């Protein structure tokens, strides 16, 4: 790259949102009731 070639400037802003916790399965709920 030519040292005299100025760089373009990129400005980007992003956000990441994790997925919600998966719902408890019916089996798990039953196990909790049994306990």
């Amino acid at each position, binding site marked *: 790259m030519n040292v005299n070639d100025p760089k373009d400037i*990129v400005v980007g802003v*992003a956000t990441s949102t994790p997925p919600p916790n998966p719902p408890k399965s019916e089996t798990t709920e039953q196990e909790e009731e049994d306990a």
Partner: protein
Amino acid sequence: MAVQYAITTRNNRLDEVIADAGASAWLQFWNGAVPATPVTAPAGTLLASCAMSNPIAPAASSGVLTCSGITSDTDANASGTPTFCRISTTETGTTSGIVQMSAASPSGGDINIDQAIVATGTVAVSGLTITDGSS
């Protein structure tokens, strides 16, 4: 001295990006080593792809291209911290990039993301501008 271009020429350079992006373009988020060029297949993993507007931006002004609204990816492909992004003409293609830029979390990249991407999560882009540096 650095090369200098007139405003009209700078705008034309950026407008060519809009033309090359065409009617369907995505902003891809990748991790791994940054490839040599925008059309070099990455060794890393594609984390997410956000659909860009058609066209991706109005005509450049004052040497700045300001992208129009970018649609969130609500089902990210994989988990990881992005190291680079590409404006690409395909959603998942590895050799269809037009522009390649660095990415980091939470700061230090051309595109900064607040935290790592989580598979099946959402990635939203609130703004993206490219300024031609040849002023």
